[in-house]
């Protein structure tokens, strides 16, 4: 057995019991690597449970900067007896096992082809600390100290991070630093440090920030001027409103009075959440809700009303495994069709697909402009992988010259000047009518909002011609949206090719790596990352320019492909499915493998690659 040797390029996995306080220690380990300038990409794998169930923290360290999930594990910190066997099995041949050796385990519990590093964490803690709580909690930071020794992490970096995390709580800082040092010293004394896998300070992180997508969305909503949020708790979206609450307290408290320039209501269910958001949007504020698939299912009727009554609002869908209760703590892109055509009747909705926290921030801000410009619900389609994991991404930027686009809102002055107001009339040819906010003018511009039975003047009407007028105008409006939404990003291959790949959202980092892998093998594929529905004309052009377009998605029924076929009327044969749907984030290996297989089966691999 040859132990794995790798510098700044490996996967470490922590197997813990949830509720044991391991999460902050694991994160501290990850941040220590990042502070040494090495790109990292962590993922929480957790159950829908509070305490006592298995949970994993998987950290990919990649000197090349690949942030997608890699799969496999080079070093396992196995601290959960419940999952011991499968954790050991997951190690690559030559991998390393770090475990708590306080209790001796029979040889049969180990593998011959791995390096075993036993540290008696419980015993050391029992000896060093008297407080039972400290004995439990310091065990976590102690293994971080030991790992620092084993993997050549700078202990000073760990200590700095401890200082930052517990700022103002000197006792905790000292206690944690001490525990880290004890772990470090133990490893130095008992093992040959470093191991074959180790860290080395580089400059690979640059100015990037490390944050989860849900927090970025919350911040985007603050910057976009959202003042009303109504929501119902649901994994994996809950932390959006929690973060929004925190940012609002910090940035939206009136300095003079201490009063809130925002209103956040935890509603009784998702129907009430979307109802409140609709009422607020109708009354002239920027309002949003955050939910996941089951919440969207419940909101259908209101989404239809908001669509037809033309009310601006933003819905964030942090997708998880479905249908039904599904897999609440696993990731998928399986609400695409649900959202695109939400509600009964003929509806079509604007969807935005951010790829990472930076885009979560940016597209959230754009979503508010778009919903007011278009007077319609806009969906921000993210998922658990982006939402609940911290990711390295470009820093947030806000152009100080940027002004909120409040869309076509008629003012009292315009009404006084005699401007015609007809709520649902297309006066500008773009399908978007003018609206008024209640209390605008004493005698002009009031209208009665209702569902379908109304004419262009918002008067009650059941005439077919009035209904058709509205429906066709809404279709025009949707076409207008095509070029207003975030446009796709095209990445051409190194050489001309008839092969294309289309993807969206959290697939992005795995796709970048897959394209590099394929290119190294001489398989050239042009790529387009779709950022919105309705699809821009650039998407049409891309599909037309290629013989075969792989459509990579994290759902079982190829939902975006269905949308492409339905809306763009492409031949299904041209759009080849690449589908990943087991609830784990898609990997580069999976994508490259699927394209390779499909490519060779159809003899699509370009011959010139060997020339």
């Amino acid at each position, binding site marked *: 057995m040859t132990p794995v040797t790798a510098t700044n390029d490996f996967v470490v996995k922590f197997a813990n019991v949830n509720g044991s306080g391991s999460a902050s220690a694991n994160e501290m380990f990850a941040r220590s690597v990042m502070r040494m300038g090495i790109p990292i990409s962590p993922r929480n794998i957790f159950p829908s449970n509070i305490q006592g169930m298995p949970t994993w923290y998987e950290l990919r360290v990649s000197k090349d900067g690949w942030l997608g999930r890699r799969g496999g594990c080079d070093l396992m910190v196995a601290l959960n007896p419940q999952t011991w066997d499968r954790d050991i099995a997951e190690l690559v041949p030559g991998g390393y096992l770090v475990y708590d050796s306080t209790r001796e385990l029979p040889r049969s519990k180990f593998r011959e082809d791995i390096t075993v590093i036993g540290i008696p964490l419980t015993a050391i803690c029992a000896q060093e600390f008297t407080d039972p709580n400290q004995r439990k909690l310091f065990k976590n930071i102690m293994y971080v100290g030991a790992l620092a020794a084993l993997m050549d992490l700078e202990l000073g970096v760990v200590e700095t991070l401890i200082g930052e995390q517990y700022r103002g709580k000197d006792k905790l800082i000292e206690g944690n630093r001490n525990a880290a040092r004890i772990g470090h010293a133990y490893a130095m004394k008992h093992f040959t440090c470093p191991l074959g896998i180790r860290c080395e300070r580089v400059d690979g*992180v640059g*100015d*990037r*920030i*490390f944050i989860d997508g849900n927090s970025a969305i919350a911040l985007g909503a603050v*910057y*976009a*001027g959202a*003042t*009303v949020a*109504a929501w119902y708790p649901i994994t994996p979206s809950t932390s959006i409103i929690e973060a929004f609450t925190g940012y609002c307290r910090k*940035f*939206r408290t*009136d300095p003079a*009075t*201490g*009063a*809130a*320039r*925002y*209103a956040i*209501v935890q*509603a*009784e269910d998702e*129907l*009430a959440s*979307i*109802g*409140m*958001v*609709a*009422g*607020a*949007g*109708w*009354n*002239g*504020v920027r*309002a949003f809700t955050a939910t996941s698939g089951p919440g969207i299912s419940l909101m259908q*009727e*209101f989404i239809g009303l908001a669509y037809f009554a033309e009310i601006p609002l933003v819905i964030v869908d942090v997708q998880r495994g479905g249908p039904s209760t599904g897999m609440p703590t696993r990731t998928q892109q399986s609400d695409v069709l649900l959202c695109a055509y939400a509600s009964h009747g003929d509806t079509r909705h604007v969807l935005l697909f951010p790829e990472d926290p930076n885009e979560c921030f940016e597209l959230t801000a754009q979503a508010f402009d778009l919903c007011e410009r278009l007077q319609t619900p806009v969906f921000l389609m993210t998922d658990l992988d982006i939402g609940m994991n911290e990711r390295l991404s470009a*820093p*947030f*930027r*806000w152009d*100080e010259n940027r*002004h*909120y686009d409040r869309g076509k809102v008629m003012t009292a002055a315009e009404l006084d000047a005699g401007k015609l107001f007809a709520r649902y009339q297309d006066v500008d040819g773009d399908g978007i009518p003018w609206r008024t*906010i*209640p*209390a*605008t003018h*004493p*005698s002009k511009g*009031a209208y*009665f*909002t*209702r*569902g379908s039975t109304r004419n262009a003047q918002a008067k*009650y009407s059941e005439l077919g011609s009035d209904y058709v007028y509205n429906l066709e105008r809404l279709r025009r409006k949707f076409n207008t949206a095509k070029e207003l939404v975030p446009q796709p990003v095209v990445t051409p291959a190194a050489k001309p090719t008839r092969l294309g790949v289309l993807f969206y959202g959290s697939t992005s980092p795995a796709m970048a790596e897959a394209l590099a892998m394929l290119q190294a093998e001489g398989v050239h594929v042009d790529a387009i990352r779709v950022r919105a529905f309705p699809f821009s004309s650039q998407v049409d052009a891309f599909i037309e320019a290629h013989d075969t377009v792989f459509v990579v998605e994290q759902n079982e029924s190829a939902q975006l492909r269905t949308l492409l076929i339905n809306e763009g009327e492409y031949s299904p044969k041209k759009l080849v499915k690449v589908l990943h749907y087991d609830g784990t984030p898609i990997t580069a290996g999976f994508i490259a493998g699927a394209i390779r297989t499909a490519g060779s089966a159809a003899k699509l691999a370009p011959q010139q690659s060997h020339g």
Partner: protein
Amino acid sequence: MTYLAKPRLLADVQPRNAIGFTKRDYEGAISTLCAGCGHDSVSAAIVQAFYELDIEPHRVAKMSGIGCSSKTPDYFLGASHGFNSVHGRMPSVATGASLANRELTLIGISGDGDTASIGIGQFAHAMRRGLNIAYIVENNGVYGLTKGQFSATADKGSKSKKGVQNADAPIDLVALALQLGATYVARSFSGDKDQLVPLIKGALRHQGAAFIDVISPCVTFNNHSGSTKSYDYVREHNEAVNRVEVIQPRQEITTEYEPGSVRRVMQHDGTALLLRKLGLDYDPTDRNRAMNQLHEWNAKGEILTGLLFVEEGADDLHHHLNTVAKPLNQLTQAELCPGQAVLDKLNAALR
């Protein structure tokens, strides 16, 4: 009552309220409900209440769900914005509207199907949150638009037009509102305009969740013998506990009362409610006693009406959320967006 188109010219000779509006300015489109529908009387009472309170129509939003009652906001206050929303979900839409502009006067119109059946959840939560709204249920015990099915407020043992006896226990929305923490709870009858108008005025001037259950007979499907929501039945079994007079902040009290017969309740905006006691010994400021008396009279098959409960100094959802005095929909980008300098600091903290 059905509106006939009235000539505009008459408006000039009509009396005007303190802000120069005539009653016509508070009317709306012509009602499409059945002739004699109790709901039209409620609409007329609403027109009267707004006129007497000198409220500018455009500073009002009319909210409703779905059903006969929910259509009525089109028939009053034509110069106000209105929102005929989703069946049973008016409370949430009204909550959002209220959050966006706390200065807007909100009136919510619902029915017994819209509130007690499909919408009971949202009704309950709007009451317990203290949504600042005058929430009126036009309660007739049947579904009108779908032609006469029992609603959840129909009394056990009452008969449908087709002679079917209702076997289910009724939901008493007044009892529910009291239990849920509504701070202004009343019951009235569409046929008693003198009682209803001041109750609506008090509700509109109340800061917090104000609920009025108005028994409003359905002339087409529930006005027969055997119904407990017919004009005849309600007239016979109506027991009013008090008469209300609403005194605006700068208005003088002109009515004379016998000492000890009137209780004065102050509202947040300085409006006083003068409650004149009728036959019963009834204290409308004691929530528990109100609930007990309500149950006692319900058991006897009698209907207590009047202002059944009011909490002095009540507050509302905005108070609980500590929102700024300026309506949220008037905040500017400068007041909302923290800018790049803050973002630079945040970015630095995320490395």
